[in-house]
């Protein structure tokens, strides 16, 4: 009974073992060195993925191990067992008959008879899944270690029962502990925390432990280098399996930078709000297309639009047309560069149509990922300053010009008066010369001419002196067409004599700011010049036209006369006492007067001319606003 029982229980156990072996994928093998025969159990064959009928041979068996380190290792282990009878246990990779790589645990033992190994036997287990999982775990643990290191997560573990504390490398770094230090829990939990946060922190921790809840807190520590750090902690309590003790595992990380950044951001936000409400600097938030979506009081004042009108407008709509292209270039440059803002001087057009000069700072706002979101545009109105500067420049220009013309005038006076005085001087010398008594009459005649010439020159110079003294407030509103018609009427007889044709195409609504006497004189000079320097064989045709420009009116008088050789006389056309034709009437005064009168009224004059084709004088005058 007993034996039966024993027997049956032995059978049962053998069955159970076989089952267990199957489940655990454990096979047997045996190698008899004397008969050189190798035996594999069914499971061993299964692991090698060979059929049941397969009869293994020792060389083939070794070759199932993966070529290289694996095969070399098993070869050396088997050889060592044969030579010394030493057992082995190792985990290696085999390549099955079907070509699959499988991790196996191979165990082998030697049977030694009379100091000679006669038999090797062992077990062979498929551990592929476990092995791969454990390799994966190792890999993941390594990865985690790298991750926590780079993320600067410190990991700590506190055993509540034996009060032992574990701190990882990152914790040491975070808290500034030395490598050889071994901080006690008390040192770690209390001494590092700054007094202000300590009590709260301790209380929170104890509460979390008491209620078995996760510990999630934030506090400040002071490192041995007197550095204050903001630390965020997250910890959880883990019951140790099969043990009374409890462990708290936590991670701590440094959020100092985050806190500081947040503080900075708060500050920026506050100061941004303050500057946005600034009453002197116009500000707008502008989307990437240039559309205004937020603006402040100051900007509405500068541009004269109500807030509601301004929002939705594109900046290009309120930019001076000549500055739009410049803006586009600047924005493109900003978007493609690393800079976040640019500053420029530009012009806007206010609602009333006035030009507003401004210093503009455009700042590109980007998301954390670098994606631009919108612009902040700051506008400082410098129109009054610019206008003042322009006025100053104009005045400077005028005084410069007047200075130059005065200087020039002084030379001319000196030269012209000198030539007469020289002549008179010589004549009086001759008159007193006893050897020239018989020529006295002719000398006297010459003296008279010289005196007349002197008189004439003085008269001309007087005319010049009277000029140049026009201040802008003396300019009045004058209708251009009426002026031209009146001047033409005055020289009607001359026009008839010369059989000339004057063609005027001036709009009757065109007004200029001018001095009536000057404008008359300018037209008179240009018209009579056109007649004086006509081509002998060709009827003079003179065309007069006018065009509106931005803030001036340009007037053109074009003839088909002799023309002036500009290559030769370029700088002298408008010079005093400069003449270009052999005309007895030419005094070199007319164009000089014209130029000075135009400039005295704030305008400019230019000439285009070609010999035997004609001349074209173009002068500008201020438009009446």
């Amino acid at each position, binding site marked *: 009974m007993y034996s039966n029982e024993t027997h049956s229980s032995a059978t049962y156990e053998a069955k159970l073992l076989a089952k267990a072996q199957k489940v655990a994928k454990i096979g047997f093998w045996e190698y008899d060195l004397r008969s050189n025969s190798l035996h594999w159990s069914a499971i061993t064959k299964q692991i090698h993925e060979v059929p049941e009928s397969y009869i293994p041979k020792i060389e083939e068996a070794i070759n199932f191990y993966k070529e290289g380190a694996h095969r070399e290792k098993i070869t050396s282990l088997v050889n060592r067992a044969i030579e010394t009878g030493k057992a082995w246990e190792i985990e290696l990779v085999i390549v099955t008959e079907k070509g699959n790589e499988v991790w196996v645990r191979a165990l082998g033992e030697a049977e030694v008879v009379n100091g000679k190994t006669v038999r090797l036997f062992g077990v062979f287990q498929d551990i592929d899944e476990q092995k791969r999982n454990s390799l994966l775990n190792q890999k993941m643990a390594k990865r985690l270690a790298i991750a926590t290191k780079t993320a600067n997560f410190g990991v700590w573990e506190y055993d509540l029962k034996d009060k032992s504390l574990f701190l990882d490398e990152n914790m040491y770094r975070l808290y500034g502990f030395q490598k050889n230090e071994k901080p006690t829990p008390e040192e770690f939990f209390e001494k590092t925390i700054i007094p202000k946060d300590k009590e709260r922190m301790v209380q929170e921790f104890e509460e979390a432990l008491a209620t078995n809840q996760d510990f999630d807190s934030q506090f400040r520590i002071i490192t041995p280098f007197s550095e204050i750090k903001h630390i965020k902690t997250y910890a959880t309590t883990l019951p140790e399996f099969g043990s009374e003790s409890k462990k708290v595992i936590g991670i701590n990380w440094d959020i100092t930078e985050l806190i500081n950044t947040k503080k900075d951001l708060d500050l920026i936000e506050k100061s941004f709000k303050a500057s946005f409400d600034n009453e002197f600097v116009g500000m707008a938030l502008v989307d990437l297309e240039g559309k205004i979506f937020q603006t402040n009081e100051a900007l509405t004042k500068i541009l004269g639009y109500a807030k509601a009108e301004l929002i939705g407008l594109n900046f290009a709509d309120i930019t001076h047309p000549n500055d739009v292209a410049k803006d586009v270039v600047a924005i493109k440059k900003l978007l493609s560069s690393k800079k976040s803002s640019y500053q420029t001087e530009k012009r806007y057009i206010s609602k009333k149509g006035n030009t507003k000069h401004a210093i503009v700072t455009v700042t590109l706002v980007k998301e954390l990922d670098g994606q631009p979101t919108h612009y902040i545009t700051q506008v400082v109105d410098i129109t009054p300053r610019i206008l003042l500067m322009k006025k100053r420049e104009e005045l400077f220009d005028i005084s410069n010009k007047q200075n130059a013309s005065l200087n020039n005038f002084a*030379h001319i006076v*000196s*030269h012209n008066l*000198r*030539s007469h005085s*020289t*002549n008179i*001087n*010589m*004549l009086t010398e*001759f008159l007193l010369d006893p*050897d*020239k008594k018989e*020529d006295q009459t002719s000398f006297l005649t*010459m003296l008279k*001419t*010289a005196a007349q*010439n002197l008189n004439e020159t003085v008269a001309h110079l007087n005319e010049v002196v009277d000029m140049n003294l026009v201040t802008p407030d003396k300019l009045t509103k004058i209708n251009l067409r009426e002026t031209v018609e009146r001047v033409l009427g005055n020289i009607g007889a001359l026009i008839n004599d010369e059989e000339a044709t004057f063609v005027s195409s001036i709009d009757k609504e065109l007004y200029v700011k001018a001095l009536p006497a000057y404008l008359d004189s300018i037209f008179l000079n240009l018209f009579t010049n056109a007649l004086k320097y006509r081509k002998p064989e060709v009827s003079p045709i003179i065309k007069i036209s006018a065009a509106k420009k931005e803030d001036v009116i340009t007037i053109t008088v074009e003839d088909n006369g002799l023309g002036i050789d500009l290559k*030769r006389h370029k700088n002298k056309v408008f010079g005093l*006492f*400069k*003449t*270009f*034709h*052999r005309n007895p009437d*030419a005094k*070199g005064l007319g164009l000089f007067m014209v130029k000075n009168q135009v400039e005295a009224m704030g305008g400019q004059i230019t000439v285009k001319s070609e010999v035997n084709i004609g001349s074209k004088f173009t002068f500008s005058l201020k438009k009446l606003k």
Partner: protein
Amino acid sequence: MKSIQQACIIDDDEIYIELLKIKMRDINFCEECLVYNDGQSAIEAIKEICDTNRSLPEVIFLDINMPILDGWGFLDHYEKLEICKTDKVVIYMVTSSMAKADLERVQEFKSIKKYIVKPITKEQLTEILLAAA
């Protein structure tokens, strides 16, 4: 003192020309005197003299301020002519201008012998004659 064959006055001041001529006669300056009232007619005449192979004036009195082509313009054209390199024409710039700019500009022209401020004195004329003869 030997007089020169031909002198030339380029000036637009009729009175001055008459007076200079009288002064020249007083010292027997030249046998013959050419007069031009502007640079343009003067340069044209000189070109023609060259073209017809006649002899050029030995001394030229050149004014600065003249219509059409002034003294400077005349010199520009004159210095481009072949003869100015070979012929012994002596040019005196005679003007009532005492402007510094004019005095400085004289340096640009090699063909100007001297800059004289009007009026030319008898002594200056004599000196010029001596130098030319």
